[in-house]
């Protein structure tokens, strides 16, 4: 699979070998403003679709980040502890949050592709 999939809660998911990488979208980081702290899950944590997986705190608010699909967290982004601003600078790249092992890959099909997400975001304003 190439390209990211998106959730209505503004997370993105990208397949990377046998895991998926999860982050927040450009739209989400813009809405949050400058990120000052990120609370990431422990590796090994089992998460369910829509369940709280992480918390991103900005100068405006603390926002829960939900697991986009069922699975188990395998790794978190080590760069964010010292430099949470990476989320603002490169939300879809170096600002990734965590990687997870997917319980049921078919769940990915229910997420939006880039075009559908773009339409979704423009419907919000």
């Amino acid at each position, binding site marked *: 699979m190439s390209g990211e999939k998106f959730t209505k809660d503004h997370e993105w998911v990208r397949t990377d070998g046998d895991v998926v990488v999860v982050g927040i979208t450009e739209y989400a980081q813009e809405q949050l403003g400058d990120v000052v702290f990120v609370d990431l899950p422990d590796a090994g944590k089992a998460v369910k679709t829509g369940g709280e997986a992480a918390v991103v705190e900005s100068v405006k608010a603390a926002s829960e980040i939900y697991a986009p699909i069922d699975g188990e967290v395998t790794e978190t982004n080590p760069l964010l502890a010292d430099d949470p*601003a990476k989320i603002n600078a490169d939300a879809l790249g170096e600002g990734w949050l965590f990687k997870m092992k997917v319980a049921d890959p078919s769940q990915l099909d229910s997420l939006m592709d880039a075009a559908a997400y773009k339409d979704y975001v423009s419907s919000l*304003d």
Partner: protein
Amino acid sequence: MMAEKMRSGPAAGGAVTGGTITGHRGLQLEEPLIFEQDSPGATGVDLPQPAAVAERLGELKRQGPIGLPGLSEPQVVRHYTRISQKNYGIDSGFYPLGSCTMKHNPRINEKLARLPGLGDLHPLQPQSTTQGMFELMDTLVHWLKTITGMPAVAMSPAAGAHGELCGMMCIRAAHEATGDPRKKVLVPESAHGTNPATAAACGYAVESIPANDRGRVDLSAFKEKLADDVAGIMLTNPNTCGLFENDIIDIADAIHGIGGFFYCDGANLNAIMGKARPGDLGVDCMHINLHKTFSTPHGGGGPGAGPVVLSEALAPFAPLPYVIHGDAGFRLVEHEGQSGGQPFGRLKGFHGQVGMFIRALAYMMSHGADGLRQVSEDAVLNANYLLAQLKDTLSASFDGPCMHEALFDDHFLKDTGVTTLDFAKAMIDEGFHPMTMYFPLVVHGAMLMEPTETESKASLDEYINAVKGLAAQARSGAVDAFHAAPRFTPRRRLDETSAARHPVLRWRPPQEEVAAE
């Protein structure tokens, strides 16, 4: 490097427009930190050298200087006077900070709290010598029970969130007494932010209930979450959108139907005093912020006080100590064995914020029942005046009327390049404490304004005029001016992001700071 940027001095936080030689602006004086004014050896008082004594401290003897700056008495007096003059409080001007009820603190409260017979009491005095204070507390309890229509009050919580903790600990104790502690607490999005935090601190899983398009609890979403592992609901009424939760009776009945309890956050009691009694609405416990509704100082001006009213079902679990009528006057119940109930423990060493009890009772008795009712009427009238005057200029989030506070969002700023934050900073230049911004989260770019009954029509009109003027400036493309605000403050726009990412929590002497970097 951050410490360097944040250190005081006229250049910090942006250059002063039309700077002066000294950095002072008129009689508004720049003021360095007291540690930066250290003149070693300077003191306020000259003491004679002590007589030689035998050294007996051994290893406990101080090894180096303790790091206090040396200053003369006039330097110290000027320092703290200058700092106090930079403060802005309810005594300075309009303070429309939504959800905070920043009302005037009547001076009669202060006068009474300083009466020697009250102010000089010690909590460990024999009870026979503190009967007057017990009677005062008992009278305050009576007023709180009468205003809320509830049968019992726990007086000791020291602030609003402490009161929430007290209420939720009562709920937990009541469930545990039946052998079923339960797991979840439901919290609507329109509740105060401290509510979910309190539930989590009490060991409950928090389930959020969405708001409906009228800014109130989505009743069907709430009912879907009801289950026999739900311990209760924490609801703020009026809620943080400044709206009365008009399904509150249905909500109370439904939570009681599954054996749960109804915690109501009473921070917004200023809107309904003398109009609606929480006891009639099915509430099981509610904290009352004496420092909001009953005019005791807060926001840096004094300790809070958050008594919690309790229903019959929760009263047996109220914390110790409390005052009761005994055979010979009042006495304190301090031990579980004396209580006849199952108190969950203590929240404070003594009886709560007694100084605030005096002030709150002074406020109640000086207003009387009719006066307190008028307080709520005037507070709600003032908020609706703001809403009515500003709804065509700003974007009102929900249809009015509102209760004690008016909520707007940032739709009126769309495509102007000006944000809620910029707007709030520009309000400072116009001489107002900004409204609450970006809260509640249920609307985008929130601006929440609570005028309280304190403000006159003239004061509100001045504010409305300023808000309308700024909105017109924003629409006319003055985006750079907004980004530059505030312009007339001792410091310009502070770098909140760096302050949050790299907080400098303690001043250190320059050489130490260099070493640390």
